[in-house]
């Protein structure tokens, strides 16, 4: 490779390609400290030309592209890393590969349909997206206090199970990234017990669209409590196994301890919430600070650690799974009877589902009533299903504590049957913004552990 041929400093900048901006952004403290004021040219290296590269690189700084198709970047995250030897001087995350315009899409569909969209944002915690959106819609409607008790309790059960399943996927993927395939296979196996339960209740493993404005899509099946009891007892054993497998594991400890430190001040400055903030010693949890769906009536602790590193985040997440199990157990005992949808017929979804021989589907009894007996019921059904309900104008901000932190829904209504604007504050998005700070000064292999410990989900980042 001839270095001159490969130098392409005047290539037009495309999609975050940092030919120009690396040069301007190298004023980060670390770069200045190491004497690297000027950024090097960008080198394009084809295969088998790597051995010639060191001669061509000036200042010992190298810009390396990692991702978007890298197995350890949690989906399609791309990082443009400036390296001094093996040390990261600067990291510029590039996102947008999974941008689907969900926020804009919501503006052209009735309020109820929004659930189907938001559940696909952060695909590892679909229930939290549904809950945050529905809480916002209900607050706009002014029916927050009218949600039936049974619906609220089931919401808590389902979201806390989602938290466990999300943490299990985090454990599985970050285990895999650090070379522990056992953590990976066990993490995904355990998660499957929860997804099986979700399929049993909602008909779908993920993207359930189960929580709806006003309540739930349908009630839980009859033997829900039995299945749930089995899941709880199974999981509490398995979480202990994870601790046995990893907490004392020398490789796991070495790779995580003291890595990717983010102090409490940095976390707050960068908007980082959730387990990462709690691992820095701040006991901030929206379930305690701004309780939703009656979660304040259950007895649970906010888990914190004081190490502010990747290992502390691991310990916090493991313990959080146990706390979630505690909540689920209490909620199951407290599960009252009654409806799962608000009584207001102008809002409540009219269609009823029933379990038939081929699975969950339309209730034949209901169909025969609206088709054969009551013209008014048919009109009502038709109006509500095609047009939905009207929501008074106003603007609310509703936040829930998702597995990754504060998941906020900032919803604006202009008094019609469709949202005027839905803005989602996804915790993963803010965590991506914190990446340069987290990874500066780390060794390249530790970047993997650092990114994994923040647990960004790109579906939520890009929306």
């Amino acid at each position: 490779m001839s270095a001159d041929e490969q130098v392409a400093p005047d290539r037009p900048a495309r999609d975050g390609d940092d030919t120009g901006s690396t040069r301007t952004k190298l004023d980060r403290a670390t770069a200045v400290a190491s004497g690297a004021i000027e950024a090097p040219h960008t080198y394009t290296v084809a295969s088998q030309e790597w051995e010639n590269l060191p001669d061509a690189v000036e200042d010992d700084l190298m810009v390396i592209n990692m991702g978007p198709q890298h197995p350890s970047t949690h989906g399609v995250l791309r990082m443009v890393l400036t390296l001094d030897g093996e040390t990261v001087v600067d990291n510029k995350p590039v996102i947008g590969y999974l941008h689907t315009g969900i926020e804009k899409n919501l503006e052209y569909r009735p309020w109820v349909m929004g659930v189907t969209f938001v559940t696909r944002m952060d695909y590892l915690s679909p229930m939290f997206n549904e809950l945050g959106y529905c809480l916002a819609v209900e607050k706009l409607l002014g029916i927050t206090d009218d949600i039936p008790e049974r619906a609220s309790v089931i919401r808590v059960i389902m979201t806390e199970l989602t938290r466990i399943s999300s943490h299990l996927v985090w454990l599985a993927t970050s285990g895999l990234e650090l070379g522990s395939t056992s953590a990976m296979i066990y993490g995904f196996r355990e998660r499957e017990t929860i997804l099986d339960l979700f399929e049993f209740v909602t008909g779908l493993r993920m993207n359930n669209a189960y929580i709806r404005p006003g309540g739930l899509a349908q009630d839980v099946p009859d033997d829900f409590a039995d299945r749930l009891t089995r899941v709880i007892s199974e999981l509490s054993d398995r979480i202990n196994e994870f601790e046995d497998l990893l907490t004392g594991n020398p490789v796991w400890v070495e790779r995580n301890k003291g890595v990717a430190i983010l102090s409490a001040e940095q976390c707050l400055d960068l908007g980082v919430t959730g387990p990462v903030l709690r691992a820095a010693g701040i006991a901030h949890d929206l379930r305690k600070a701004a309780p939703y769906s009656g979660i304040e009536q259950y007895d649970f602790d906010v888990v914190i650690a004081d190490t502010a590193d990747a290992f502390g985040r691991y310990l916090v997440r493991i313990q959080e799974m146990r706390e979630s199990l505690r909540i689920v157990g209490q909620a199951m005992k407290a599960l009252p009877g009654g409806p799962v949808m608000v009584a207001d017929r102008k809002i409540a979804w009219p269609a009823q589902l029933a379990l038939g021989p081929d699975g969950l589907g339309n209730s034949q009894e209901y169909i025969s009533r609206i088709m054969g007996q009551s013209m008014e019921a048919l009109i009502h059904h038709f109006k509500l299903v095609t047009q939905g309900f009207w929501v008074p104008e106003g603007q609310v901000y509703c936040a829930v504590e998702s597995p990754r932190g504060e998941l906020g829904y900032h919803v604006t209504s202009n008094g019609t049957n469709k949202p005027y604007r839905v803005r989602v504050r996804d915790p993963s998005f803010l965590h991506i913004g914190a990446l340069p700070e987290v990874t500066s000064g780390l060794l390249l292999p530790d970047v993997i552990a650092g990114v994994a410990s923040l647990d960004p989900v790109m579906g939520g980042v890009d929306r």
Partner: protein
Amino acid sequence: MRGFGSGNPNMASGEAVKMRAGRVPEVQLGEQLARVRDRLVGQFEGLEVSGFRGELTLVCAPEQVPDILEFCRDDDELSCELLSDLSWVHWPSGQREEEAEETTGWPQYRGEDEPGRIELDYIVRSLRHNHVFRIRTFLPDSGARIATVSGIYRSAEIMEREAYDMVGVDFEGHPDLRRIMMPDEWEGHPHRKDYPLGGVEVQYHGATVPPPDQRSY
């Protein structure tokens, strides 16, 4: 709440209904938020207070935003450590519905030409005092510019990039204002209401499905 049949089902056709302070029912704020309101209103001039569903909103002029946010962060009584969110809403220019008369069954319109505006909402949260409220400001929708607050809360850096990308607000003094979701050479800002949506071609007699904002359903 409006019942069925009232209002225009084709709401998204650009005739956005402006939220008016007078039309939003004044709601009692909690004790803590009332203290926040008194503190800020006493400190800054020209703040307009509105409340909806128990949430506190303070509307200020664009040039006041950095000062107010810095005060919110540093003041002991407010102590907002976290900039929870930066949100934006585009209210395009045009005629707005002034008054909907429900009793006659037919809405009465009084056409009013309004300039287009972009609403920015800074949602700040205090962990120590456990309160959350929003600072709202309006910018003209063409050539919108406002000073960055990324020097006050670094979390604003990535959110302002998204706002720049999606509605085209120029945050002056931002260290790295580039597109973040859309490709760099993309034209237009997708979250603006006047952003063209495009229809769908149908493989039958050359028919098309109109763009979502022009559909009658």
